[in-house]
């Protein structure tokens, strides 16, 4: 069947459902595939059922899905990221189990294994790391810079909608059809129509294109928010370090997402319209694809890790009870990394055949990045040095990061040498390297941030004991799983192999699968921690809002914050303004007068575009042309109709603001201040007694 002659349902038919395969040929591989599809279906039915049972549809719609409040959008991002994280981790465990089965053994078919590593990579990068990073940024950035919302609240909602609908496509691909087998990078010509005529690469393409648009809009939004909406007095050199990393990360998005869009869309043109960008015949050049993809791919890893650096900077400063050491050098290092990240993309394809000169240039550029990164590591250690350190959960993640990330970074410097790269490229050494930077670097940072800011978002602290268990499990699980891969990689085991023959790999593979199970336990411990914390929330409430004696503006307001964030926009006079105010005894000022506050009104455009773009992607994947055309028109029309709305803001009256704010100020006045040593105790209601000795 060609694209032109597809019928009413396009190329969708009975064979597309995994159950068909199970009936025709029942084997372990099909059972795993069907179990995965079953989990998705049961999960969806269970969520819908629970929502109906508890009559939550109304509140869900009013308070969440149509909200343009940056805090709620941020929380929805994080929830989405954690759901996708669960799938990504499970896939990782299945892959490690397959490889641990022994030489020539295993329960999966090669194709199924290839689908697993493709979805695992795609999900972890685009639907875990990105939404988690920008979920936290959504919640935090306006609070940290003293703003009422992001620059474009509705665009923010649309970004979320597009990211979620793209992520849902990966879930749909489990139930209808198949996903790409081309890895998260989807290199043609393998993913071209000539070698891969099925729907797999199409699912990948449209998920990437749509989520890429969402991410680009987010990048624009946050660049403008930090650039233009800072509170009076918040000069650039007074920005919290976290905001510096977010603005750099946003700039990276603005300039690095387009190459991904170009690569994916040109691949789509090849597959759908028979163009010849990357084909083997008629002048196509697949090397163009590798070049375009990594023009995106390298800045991408920095746009993920920079915000994590920002989180660690805040965590180290707060839990050492010190100012961040070397703020200026950290700012310069962050910006240098952002710019340098545009100059190193070729190190992802050293072996493609370009001259030694080009390889050397890009190899040296890559090694240069180690300099600003090293500056950061020393600054963090100097922040700890002679600080009054509390080994709280975020701090423990930070310490695990410091030690493990240096290993990952140094293995990156090793790989930056083209001669070494020729030996170990495409082996598990590489897999070990990037997991070693992504887990301790990005994921631990995000989990540290989750533990650190959770009380601000929900008004109660997370359980410390389970948090500590979680840290240990993640750290041990990571080391058991990925450190052995360095060794098998050096021994020559190729990445992405569903089967292998050399018996000397076996012990390493066994160790790695044990590690994978520990990581699974770590994921469960995060869920248990949340469950226990919700159960015990009455003992851990922190309504005053500053449970950790922290330093930046977001801690100077109630937890959870009101919809308008700040009753009075603060005037900033210092870096770490809130810490300075506490030292002066000037925190929690009583405002002279209140003003009306405008906040964005609820709107359904984000949800509408989420659903429509989902249908649009599905129609394109399955060649249902009439539906794709219809939905395209509907998307354009619904957007145009939305631009006719003028009633987009609502006003909170000064009187309401006064009432709420004064009630909270009363709470502050009556709360008992708690010293750093009693942070974990029930009497910590979020009012800190500054530790003046440590502060000086």
């Amino acid at each position, binding site marked *: 069947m060609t694209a032109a002659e597809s019928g009413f349902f396009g190329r969708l038919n009975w064979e597309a459902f995994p159950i068909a395969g199970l009936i025709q040929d029942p084997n372990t591989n099909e059972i795993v595939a069907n179990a995965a599809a079953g989990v998705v279906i049961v999960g969806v039915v269970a969520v819908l059922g629970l929502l109906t049972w508890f009559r939550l549809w109304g509140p869900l719609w009013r308070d969440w899905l149509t909200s343009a409040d940056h805090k709620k959008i941020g929380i929805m991002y994080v929830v989405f990221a954690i759901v996708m994280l669960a799938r990504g981790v499970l896939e990782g465990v299945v892959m490690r189990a397959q490889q641990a089965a022994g030489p020539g053994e295993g329960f999966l078919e090669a194709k199924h294994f290839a689908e697993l590593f493709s979805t695992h990579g795609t999900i972890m990068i685009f639907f875990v790391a990105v939404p988690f990073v920008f979920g936290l940024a959504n919640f935090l950035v306006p609070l940290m810079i003293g703003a009422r919302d992001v620059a474009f609240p509705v665009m923010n909602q649309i970004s979320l909608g597009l990211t979620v609908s793209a992520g849902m496509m990966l879930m749909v691909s489990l139930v209808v059809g198949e996903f790409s087998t081309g890895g998260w990078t989807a290199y043609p010509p393998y993913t071209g129509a000539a070698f891969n005529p099925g729907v797999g690469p199409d699912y990948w393409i449209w998920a990437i294109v749509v989520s890429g648009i969402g991410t680009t809009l987010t990048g624009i939004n946050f660049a403008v928010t930090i650039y233009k909406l800072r509170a009076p007095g918040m000069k650039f050199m007074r920005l919290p370090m976290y905001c510096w990393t977010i603005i750099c990360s946003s700039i990276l998005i603005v300039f690095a997402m387009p190459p991904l869009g170009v690569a994916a869309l040109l691949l789509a043109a090849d597959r759908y319209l028979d163009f010849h960008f990357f084909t083997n015949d008629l002048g196509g050049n697949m090397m163009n694809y590798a*070049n375009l993809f990594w*023009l995106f791919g390298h800045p991408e890893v920095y746009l993920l890790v920079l915000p994590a650096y920002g989180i660690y900077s805040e965590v180290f400063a707060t839990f050492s009870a010190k100012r961040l050491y070397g703020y200026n050098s950290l700012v310069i290092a962050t910006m240098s990394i952002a710019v340098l990240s545009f*100059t190193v993309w*070729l190190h992802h394809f050293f072996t*493609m*055949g*370009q*001259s030694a000169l*080009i390889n050397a240039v890009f190899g040296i550029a890559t090694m240069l990045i180690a300099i600003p990164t090293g500056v950061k590591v020393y600054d963090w250690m100097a922040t700890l040095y002679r600080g009054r350190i509390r080994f709280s959960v975020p701090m423990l993640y930070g310490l695990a990061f410091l030690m493990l990330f240096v290993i990952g970074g140094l293995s990156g410097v090793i790989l930056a040498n083209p001669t070494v790269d020729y030996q170990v490229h495409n082996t598990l050494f590489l897999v070990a390297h990037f997991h070693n930077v992504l887990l301790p670097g990005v994921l631990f940072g995000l989990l540290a941030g989750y533990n650190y800011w959770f009380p601000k978002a929900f008004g109660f602290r997370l359980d410390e004991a389970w948090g500590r268990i979680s840290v240990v499990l993640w750290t041990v699980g990571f080391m058991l799983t990925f450190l052995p891969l360095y060794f098998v990689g050096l021994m020559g085991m190729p990445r992405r192999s569903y089967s292998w023959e050399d018996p000397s790999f076996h012990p390493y593979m066994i160790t790695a699968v044990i590690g994978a199970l520990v990581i699974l336990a770590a994921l469960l411990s995060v869920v248990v921690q949340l469950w226990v914390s919700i159960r015990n929330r009455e003992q851990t409430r922190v309504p005053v809002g500053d449970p950790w004696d922290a330093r930046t503006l977001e801690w100077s307001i109630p937890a959870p914050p009101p919809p308008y964030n700040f009753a009075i926009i603060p005037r900033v006079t210092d870096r770490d303004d809130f810490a300075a105010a506490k030292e002066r005894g000037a925190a929690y000022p009583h405002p002279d007068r209140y003003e009306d506050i405008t906040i964005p009104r609820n709107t359904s455009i984000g949800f509408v575009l989420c659903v429509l773009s989902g249908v649009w992607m599905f129609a394109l994947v399955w060649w249902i042309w009439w539906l794709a055309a219809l939905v395209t028109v509907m998307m354009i029309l619904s957007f145009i109709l939305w631009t006719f709305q003028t009633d987009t803001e609502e006003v909170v009256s000064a009187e309401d603001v006064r009432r709420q704010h004064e009630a909270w100020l009363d709470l502050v006045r009556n709360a008992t201040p708690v010293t750093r040593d009693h942070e974990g105790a029930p009497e910590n209601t979020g009012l800190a007694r500054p530790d003046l000795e440590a502060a000086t």
Partner: protein
Amino acid sequence: MDRHSELHRRERRRYVIGYGSSLLLTLAMFATVHWFGIETRGVYLTIGLLGLAQLIVQLVYFLHIDRRRSSREDLDLVLFSTLVLLIIIGGTVWILGNLAMRMHMPVV
């Protein structure tokens, strides 16, 4: 009212100057090709410079990008974008040109 129309006239003149110079540069471009053909590197260099000049003219006269304080942010943004573009386009052409040469594909 006078000052108003005076400013208006001055600003309109800016647009007309921008339009006129762009027009001249366009004409120069096509005239160069018409008279000298397009096969040689020298002619192409001329055309490239004329195109660049027109880009700058339009940035200044139509988009009001200059070193005035009020448009400094936009200037910074445009300059940074230019830097990134130069890196990625220059790098792309360098890498793929080199690959084409080494694979004995027709050289760009």
